């Protein structure tokens, strides 16, 4: 059980002398509270696994410190850090039974036999593994194996944090949901700090109470799922989270107005005069743009196609050169290809060089 502090932590596989731009993880400072459920989210190669391996001690950082409960553990070996880790592919000890697998970490640490037995029983109950305790672990399905790997971490009473490295990759889709809810329940029950690496936004958003979005070795935003959705701090977050992703279009912004293709969209906040020389864009989620029959005064667009996602329909439209995704409100019937777009000013954000610009009142 621990609070985790990352202090100016950075890593390069090419060593400290490598140019800063080539670092797999660029310097990051942040605090993760004890008992929190965190997800590190980003595409392959964004540095999330590197960050996880730094915390578990598999990789030693080129720079910076990691603190567990204020104590610097950077020089400690994996063994001494008291963390548990579940890998992408289930790691189980082939020759052992499920029970022996669960007891392995305790036996290695010389825990008395009776205590080992009690602990194993308790964890097996928690993970619904009790019926399999005497079975050979090799014969089980992938999701049961992942539960065993998790169990080997949980069985130790002193784990500081549980790390997950894309643990659901090899699990069948229908079981993924089950296992995810199990993790969530365990998290509530055990009050453990959990860190979950994934490239799947659904996994991240359903599992974590804080999602850390990473891109190109940098943490671009850390916040609750709602924050990431409502107010992406970076165009990458807007684009990566949500399906379809945020609409991001070049625009001219001054004061409370944004101008796209000669048409004026009003904004909720006042942006004054933005610094020149930066790439100015506005971002708005498709959920907050509605298509309507063409009406004077609305931004006019051409509908290219309509995607039916079941509960909701999105129209793919074109405005000049820019492409938009927009919600199709119930009852809307297209008349030809042309349509107008209605923006919800509260949800239109302004980005300068991809970073969110906070407007004034």
């Amino acid at each position, binding site marked *: 059980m621990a609070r985790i502090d990352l202090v100016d932590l950075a890593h390069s596989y090419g060593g400290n002398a490598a140019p800063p731009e080539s670092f797999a993880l660029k310097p990051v400072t942040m605090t993760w509270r004890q008992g929190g459920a965190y997800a590190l989210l980003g595409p392959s190669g964004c540095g999330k696994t590197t960050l996880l391996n730094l915390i*578990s001690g*598999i990789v030693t950082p080129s720079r910076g410190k990691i603190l567990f409960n204020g104590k610097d553990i950077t020089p400690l*070996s*994996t*063994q001494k850090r008291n*963390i*548990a*880790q579940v*890998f*992408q*592919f*289930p*790691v*189980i*000890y*082939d*020759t*052992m039974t499920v029970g022996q697998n669960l007891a*392995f*970490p305790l036996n*290695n*640490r010389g825990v008395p036999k009776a205590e080992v037995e009690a602990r194993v029983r308790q964890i097996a109950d928690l993970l619904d593994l009790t019926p399999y305790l005497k079975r050979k672990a*090799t*014969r089980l399905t*992938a999701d049961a*194996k992942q539960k065993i*790997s998790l169990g*080997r*971490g949980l069985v130790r009473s002193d784990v500081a944090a549980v790390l997950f490295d894309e643990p659901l*990759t*090899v699990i069948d889709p229908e079981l993924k949901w089950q296992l995810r809810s199990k993790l969530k329940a365990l998290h509530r029950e055990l009050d453990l700090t959990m860190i979950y690496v994934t490239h799947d936004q659904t996994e991240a958003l359903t599992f974590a109470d804080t999602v850390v979005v990473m891109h190109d070795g940098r943490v671009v935003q850390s916040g609750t799922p709602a924050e990431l959705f409502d107010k992406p701090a970076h165009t990458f977050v807007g684009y990566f989270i949500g399906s379809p992703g945020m609409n991001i279009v070049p625009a001219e912004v001054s004061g409370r107005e944004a101008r796209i293709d000669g048409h004026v969209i009003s904004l909720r906040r006042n942006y004054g005069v933005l610094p020149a020389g930066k790439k100015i864009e506005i971002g708005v989620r498709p959920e907050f743009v509605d298509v309507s029959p063409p009406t004077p005064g609305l931004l006019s667009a051409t509908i290219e196609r309509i995607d039916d996602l079941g509960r909701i329909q999105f129209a793919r439209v074109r405005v000049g050169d820019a492409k938009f995704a927009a919600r199709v409100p119930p009852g809307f019937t297209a008349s030809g290809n042309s349509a107008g777009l209605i923006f919800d000013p509260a949800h239109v954000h302004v980005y300068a060089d991809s970073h969110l610009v906070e407007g004034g009142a």
Partner: protein
Amino acid sequence: MDKIVNQKAWFLVLPVFLVVAFSAILPLMTVVNYSMQDTFGNNQFFWNGVGWFKELLDPSTDLGGRFLASLGRNLLFSAIILTIQVPLGIVVALSMPREGWSVAACLVILALPLLIPWNVVGTIWQIFGRPDIGLLGYTLNSLGIDYNYVSNDFDAWVTVIVMDVWHWTSLVALLCYAGLKSIPDAYYQAAQIDGASRWAVFRAIQLPKMNRVLLIAVLLRFMDSFMIYTEPFVVTGGGPGNSTTFVSIELVKIALGQFDLGKAAALSLVYNLIILIVCWVFYTVMTNAGAERKAAPESEAALEPKPAAGLKPVGVLKPKEGVA
């Protein structure tokens, strides 16, 4: 994936069948034929039924005595070879460097003895062990150890065994190394997190993962050592006396030395039968192990060759982790 039933596949197998049948079935029929006959030379043969086989298994006859004695020597030899080479091979495999040029260097040197013609292996040790001109024999004798593989039974055995260890331990080591290489890093990391000692890592991860290759190594080594001919023949010629006369050496003596075709053929058949039985057990165990691997999809990919480049199966498995 299930295989398709297709009898036309026989056409594809036909060339192999013909080549091997030509080399195996025809000679084998000759052997069976000879084994039931006696000859006094001049290509005159007499029907002898199962006479040779009876004699072969009766230690009181000349043939039976020689066969059973050589069989006993051969089994002892195989047992010694296995007890030395398997643990040594594992230790050598575990001692392989991790990366860099030294890996290739070690592999090349390890593989070297395997590619030396068997009689040259014999020649190398024949020279190396001689008390007059060989480094080993000379050194031992100048240390006051009376070593001479030509006149002393024990020394001859030691020489033949050390030679075989020299010749074949690399095979065991290379097989084990291949087994070790197929263990994904995550296993070592997990073991580290679980606080496993070095020995626990060996017992819980490395040994189980080497299971299959070790089985292959043991059986290959058993069979090859059971068939050994050339190397001891060159070094000791089966001597001193008959002390290093193994079954193959006895067989060649009878067949090509004395041209006692009937006896040799009967001996061949029994000899072959023993090996065939071991081979069958081996094959059954292997196939069962294979079936078990199918039941455990996680480890299935471990020993299968990776698909050729550019053909990675589309799916969630990244190729690197695919060998989990």
